């Protein structure tokens, strides 16, 4: 069975490394982008099976990115997309609902939960 590819978009270097480590360990191929713009470029190059993306980033936020993906790229209009967020406002989860993310995970993130959500999202795809 070929490895599923996850595109990880996160502007915090340490966090990026950590998540890459954890997800590789869980058996996925992990590609990294450090902001929304880079992420958008990468999608075409690596054709990911799932996107794991920080909510708040400079230049292009996770929200803007998902909106672009859902709206502009028909081939990725239903790609599994998981938000990671450190935002304190619980209402933010509702604000992104219409873009149909697979999950909305708060930081600090529990790795067991993360693995489970990734697995489920890939299964449902």
């Amino acid at each position: 069975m070929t490895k599923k590819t996850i595109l990880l978009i996160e502007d915090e270097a340490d966090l990026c490394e950590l998540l890459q480590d954890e997800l590789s360990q869980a058996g996925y191929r992990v590609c990294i982008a450090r902001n929304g713009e880079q992420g958008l470029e990468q999608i075409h190059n690596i054709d990911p099976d799932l996107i794991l993306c920080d909510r708040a980033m400079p230049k292009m936020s996770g929200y803007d990115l998902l909106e672009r993906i859902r709206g502009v790229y028909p081939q990725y209009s239903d790609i599994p997309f998981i938000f990671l967020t450190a935002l304190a406002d619980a209402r933010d989860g509702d604000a992104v609902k219409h873009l149909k993310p697979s999950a909305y995970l708060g930081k600090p993130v529990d790795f067991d939960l993360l693995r489970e959500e990734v697995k489920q999202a890939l299964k449902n795809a």
Partner: protein
Amino acid sequence: MDKLDIVVLDTDEKSELAQKLWLFVGGQNVELRHRKEAKSETVDIRNKIVCINENFYNKNKELCNKINVSNISFYVSQSGEDFDRIGLLSEGFDYVVHGKDIENEHFNKLLNLVISEQKSLQKQQDKREERRYFRDALSVSPDALIIFDENKKIIYASEHYSRVYKSFNDALVEGLHVEEAFALMSQEQDVMPGDPQYQIARDFWYNLDGTSEIALKNGQTLRLTARQLPDSRGTAVTTTNITEYKEQQAVSEEQSKKLEKLLSAEQEASAIQKQFISMVSHEFKTPLTIIDGNAQILSRRSDELTGDIVEKRSKTIRSAVSRLINLMDGVLSSSMIETGNLKYEPEEFDLKALINELCSEQMDLAPTLQIHTDLNNIPDEVSLDKKMMTLIISNLLSNAVKFAHEEPSVEINAEIKNSLLLLQFNDNGIGIPDDEQDKIYDRFYRASNTAGITGTGIGLNLVHQLVQIQGGSIKLVSVEGEGTTFYLTFPLNDE
């Protein structure tokens, strides 16, 4: 109307004259009284018809001459043909009659004529009195009144007009056309064509309709109201001085504006506070996530961990912890400054070493960061508050990383000039928009081009305050999209 009084003055107890008169006037609205002595009440008789019998006159001549003047007086002669009619008339009696004539038709007619004349006279007097009351009441009213007939000519103007307008005293006001009256008024008020108030007033007086407000040159404001009289018989115009009302209105408007301003400032402050709390929470969560993630890996993979991995994970944890501490220091210092609890405590320390240490800490956190320093022109030791300097430098460095365009790059120059330490930080970041540079040191203020970049908005505010506490100054030159240079100066103690 009151009964008409006829008083008969006759010394006879059973006055024949009074009885005869009663036969004539009985049944009319007349009160007939008989008096035989000159009492104080008799003297008070006024505006009455008085019939004075010869016998009474002879006894009270002086009194009778007084009574003549203010009454309609009949002298009734009883002594026959020899009375001097002309002499008595010249003494002030209105009529002189002979006692025996009282019974004939001629006297009857005369008396009736006098009675009816007296009645109409009294009516007129009553009307005049009523009119006087009306005028007096209007003259003390706070509102002025002017009445025009259907041809727009003045029928009546209350005393206010003659008090305010001299020409209303001189000119015969009654009968003056409204347009002539307006010309007089505007001339006296010195309101001339071309003045917008002139046009408002002219429109009002020429149309005599509705309500207008006119601001006079003396600062007073008048409200004019025109109302049609019933059956279109003319127009009544009232003028009310609403200056006080206007002033109160202006005051209350100003107060409500002030309140609105305060409220919106309060709302803004509360919104900023909320945003700050959410930002702080976000800022804390990121290093906490790093610590927690590393801890999860260490605990779950304890079997397969090598020394290298443990060291790497521990290092990451420690750097996240130091990031948390910096964050806390910033927030705490800022709040201590706000409450006035941060004291300036200068000490001798090696500034070069501090700058280098903070640079290498920052490079550990952001490996792509390039830093060039030129610190050769400063002494080995300077006397400043080390804690404050640490916060200032680390904030400016971390800003350079946080708000970097591409690869962050910082140049730091330091030198001493005229006992002043000059520090210069130059970054290649996103810059600060021109029109926001004066607000950039405000607490919680974040420039409009920082969307998506997390931060609390206290960093530069803190730097600014820490520089000022040490007696220094800070200014910046920034080009949006190219970078920012901060120029800091600190006075050094020569001792």
